């Protein structure tokens, strides 16, 4: 592939954002929103083309390697493999959904659309990066863009939540940078290139140095993922963010953390990863159980979903930690675990994206996320209730949806290498089932009761067409991934094999 199609894909939204900012504000709300939707749909179409042209098991493809700052060993290196392709596709699916959802947005629409388009570029760029500094640049820019989304379009308490989100994740990114510099200095010749670093394995045999670098990288990624105890920025950020912002934050931005583990921590620091895998397994299990239990105690619908994200991301860390336990007899199980972890990223992105958009629908009508303010909503909004029910059951790992394929692989694959930790994590799926079904039952079933605060629009309208158009495809895709998982697994499985070979060095 000679044409830099991947670069075009990554920077198309940013170019559109720049163009939007050149238009006068008076051009009208519709122009900006429809441009946003059209451009993100074009990105989706490009991604589909990328996927159809992708050769399973062909390693890194659509590669572009250009000089950028050669004196510092930094290059513009992008490419696609079995890990990045599903996440690029997830990004390309979620952004048009958010664009459709936001069609009724009225506040500073030009900036809103431009910001989201810029955010899309940072997300796509991160998942395509094969250079640590390029990765870092996109990582930080995504934080900046999300800060403005939350602060500018969030609920009343957004300023403080956005500040917390920014400072916390930015501090994490600094730890990440420190680790990257450690890797750079260890390599000979000095380089930030991920492919070169993975091939060289610069920290082989230097356990102390390796441990420090893993600590820095792990800390940075753990904040972003987020894992317990670095998750406290997440609930306020979600509760205060606008629905589309929450969907992207949970659906795409959180994946940057786990993506970093698979892309950087495991292949570049194999020895340290194997040594300290039990710590990551422990953090994963604690996140699973702690996230589920704290979610169980929440009274705010959106905050509850935020905590279930901690739970769902914990499974990924558990699987990645379990995959480091060497042993020929567990090789197949560990591959299953890594594949499941990647699948979980995609699945969680779709389902949490849908759930946050649904939470936005709820707030738009009732002006509150408090669960005890609602009862029997299904009577007034049957389609909304049905979709929420589907999203809830999908999110709790029901077979037929993508979550089951992910969680089954993670749990079945991790049990062999890490029996005790996995057995402890299994009740997590019961806790999420209990808390989600309870929320569903309390808010949507039973006698009708709606919040009656000043400014509440009394009729609680059912799902509007553009809202349904945003949410239904996400859930439909979750069904497709749950029933016909092979087309994604065929892409992911070769990558799992490769990354485990790299870890085994």
């Amino acid at each position, binding site marked *: 592939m000679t044409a830099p199609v991947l670069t075009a894909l990554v920077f198309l939204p940013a170019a559109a954002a720049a163009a939007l900012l050149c238009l006068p504000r008076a051009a009208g709300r519709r122009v900006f929103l429809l441009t946003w939707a059209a451009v993100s749909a074009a990105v989706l179409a490009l991604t589909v083309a990328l996927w159809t042209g992708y050769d399973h098991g062909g390693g890194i493809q659509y590669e572009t390697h250009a000089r950028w700052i050669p004196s510092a060993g930094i290059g513009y290196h992008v490419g696609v493999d079995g890990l990045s392709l599903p996440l690029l596709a997830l990004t390309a699916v979620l952004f048009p959904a958010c664009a459709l959802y936001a069609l009724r947005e009225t506040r500073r629409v030009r900036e809103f659309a431009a910001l989201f388009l810029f955010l899309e570029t940072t997300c796509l760029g991160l998942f395509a990066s094969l250079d640590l500094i390029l990765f870092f640049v996109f990582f930080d820019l995504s934080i900046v863009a999300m800060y403005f989304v939350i602060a500018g379009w969030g609920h009343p308490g957004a300023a403080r939540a956005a500040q917390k989100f920014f400072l916390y994740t930015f501090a994490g990114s600094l730890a990440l940078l420190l680790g990257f510099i450690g890797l750079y200095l260890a390599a000979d010749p000095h380089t930030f290139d991920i492919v070169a670093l993975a091939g060289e394995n610069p920290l082989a045999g230097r356990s102390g140095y390796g441990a420090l670098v893993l600590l820095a990288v792990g800390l940075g990624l753990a904040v972003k993922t987020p894992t317990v105890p670095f998750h406290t920025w997440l609930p306020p950020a979600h509760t205060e963010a606008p629905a589309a912002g929450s969907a992207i934050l949970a659906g795409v931005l959180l994946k940057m953390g786990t993506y970093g583990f698979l892309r950087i921590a495991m292949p570049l620091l194999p020895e340290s990863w194997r040594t300290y895998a039990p710590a990551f397994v422990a953090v994963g299990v604690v996140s699973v159980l702690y996230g589920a*239990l704290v979610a*169980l105690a929440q009274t705010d619908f959106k905050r509850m979903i935020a905590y279930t994200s901690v739970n769902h991301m914990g499974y990924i860390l558990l699987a990645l930690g379990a995959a480091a336990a060497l042993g020929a007899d567990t090789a197949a*199980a560990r591959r299953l675990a890594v594949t499941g972890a990647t699948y979980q990223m995609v699945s969680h992105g779709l389902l949490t994206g849908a759930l946050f958009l649904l939470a936005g629908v709820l707030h738009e009508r009732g002006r509150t996320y408090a669960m005890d303010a609602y009862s029997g909503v299904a009577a007034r909004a049957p389609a909304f209730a049905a979709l929420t029910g589907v999203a809830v059951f999908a999110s709790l790992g029901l077979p*037929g949806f993508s979550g089951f394929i992910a969680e*089954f692989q993670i749990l*079945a694959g991790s*049990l*062999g290498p890490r029996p005790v930790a996995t057995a402890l994590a299994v009740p997590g799926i*019961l806790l999420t089932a209990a808390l989600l079904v309870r929320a569903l039952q309390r808010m949507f079933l039973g006698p009708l009761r709606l919040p009656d605060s000043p400014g509440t629009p009394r009729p609680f309208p059912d799902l509007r067409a553009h809202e349904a158009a945003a949410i239904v495809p996400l859930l439909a895709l979750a069904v497709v991934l749950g029933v016909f998982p092979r087309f994604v697994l065929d892409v992911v499985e070769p990558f799992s094999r490769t990354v485990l070979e790299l870890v085994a060095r």
Partner: protein
Amino acid sequence: MSAALWALVAVPLAAGALLAAAGRRADRYAPAVAVTASAATLVAAVSVAAARPQTQVPLLAGLPFGLGAHGLSGPMAVAVAAVTLAVLVSSAAGAGAREPRARFFGLMLLFCGAMLVTVTATALPALLMGWEFMGATSWALIGFQWRDPVRAEAAGVAYVTTRAADLGLYLAAGAALAGGRATGLDLDRLHEVPAPWLHLLTAGVLAAALGKSAQLPVSFWLSRAMQGPSPVSALLHSATMVVAGAYLLLRVQPLLAVSGWGDDAVAWTGAATALVLGLVAVAQRDLKQLLAASSCAQIGFMVLAAGVGATTGGTLQLLAHAAAKSLAFLVAGFWLTAFGAGTLPALRGAAGRNVVAGAAFTVAALGLAGVPPLSLWAAKDLLLAGALEYGPALYAAGLAAAVVSAVYAVKALWYVWHPPGPVPRRTAAPPTETATEPRAGTPTDAPAEAPTDTSTDTPTETPVEAPAPRSGAGSGPPGRGPRALPVPEALSFAVLALAVAALAALALPGPRAAVADRIGARGEAAPYAWEFALTAALALAASAATWARSGRRGHLPAGLTAPFAGWLGMEAAARALLVRPVLRLAAALAAFDDRVLDRGVDGLARGTVRFAGGVDRGAEAAVDGAVEAVGAASRALGRLARRPQTGQLHAYLAQAVAAFTVLAAVFVLVR
């Protein structure tokens, strides 16, 4: 032929999904579509049961999604499809015009498809997929009348309880994968998994199966599940969902045997459930609750059969019970709609008002009682022969449980055949007893229940709107007479009643050998003639005694039944021991999250700001002070430097002289 296998699961799932998604727009066509789809499913089931195809497609790495109809799967598929058809025909006939029929029939078909995946799955992943999906559809079906918070809550309890047990299958899959990935998690090869993993595998399968089949100690969810519509109970809680656990245990019988403890645990759990839940059934005063407890007890016999390796007997018991219990639930649903109440006293004389329904219920109840020559009697003997081989204690427990089943079945019969006499009323029954079907954990069998106290039996109790999903079909006060029994519904009753009787033929030596061969059972104990005679005599004697005693003093002494009326407080115990501690822990952790972790981070931020303030006041002042001091010193030096510039010539001359003097001195000294 594998096309028929795919059609078997795809037709109900696709039709169900379409109906459920279409919603109220499809209400008019829903019954017809559902009955057609279900008939097609039955055709597919019969054809795969005959041809026994097997097929698989890749699902996960090394773990294909396999379906097959060999062994027990074929007959199970036929039974599931047949009962589904019977129930759907019966519901279609009674469905009211204003009911959300598309949702109801869609969910029923989705459930049926999930159950068919479960019974035809050849390996754990496919089984787990069907198993879990079935649980979720059962939630939607039990909570079908979702406006009633009690029913919504009941659906949640049933779902969460069964899912708790389902965790066992996740562990089992992991253990099977860790121990023997070469098996591909094939159900027929699970016993090849080596030792340490074998035990986890067995424990996981056991937990999942016993939980799904509402065995002790989690039987309570079935009591709550009775809040669902009666056709749902007729399908889920007789022939399908609750027997999935027994099916799985019968299917993996070699695993139980190899584990060394699984078979004992299963046999005794089954026997204990058969006996204890039988007593619970005797103590119920609500017909559906009685039937639910009876389901647990009758499935206990199947579980017992799996434990002792009497697969043929267990299979026959499963099929016979499926027919008898779904028939009983269908008739119960008909009466519930017709009379507006489900308690036994309120149903007094119900059988006499519509002879077809009454006769059908009689066949079902006598079947459950184990009265010869109906099929459950013969099936029980087959499986009890295995128990006798296992040990006399287990056999005795099984016999006792059989006697108890005769008692509760005949108790129900007595009520429905005895119209309330013209007895003076004393007090009205508490309204809750008729307004909704009672919840588990509430005493449902008050001492006043004895038939001599007929005050609660009078037909003057307030009729309530029937909770079945066909309330549009007219529910009137009992005095006005029941609604007419539609022909298709009567036909369903007749077919199921015929099956209750005819399935007994499978116990005859010839057909029995064929069944054993079909399901791959070998070397199982065959009952002696005296065993048949003994159980027949016991069933008849217990039935006669119950009938006679019912007229005079009640069925069993109140002191004996009182603890069983509330399902032994199982749900209360589960809430006290598990649910409440978990909720408390969750609240504590949430408080910790807010007050310690989050405050800690905020504190760090505040500390940084405070430190910055300190730096500002302390270090910044010092640094700035130093800079200021340098400036001040420079200014002072500048002032000093300006001093010699006086503008007077003599002063400059004197300065020059002084300077040259110094220079000269330096020159001299240095040189």
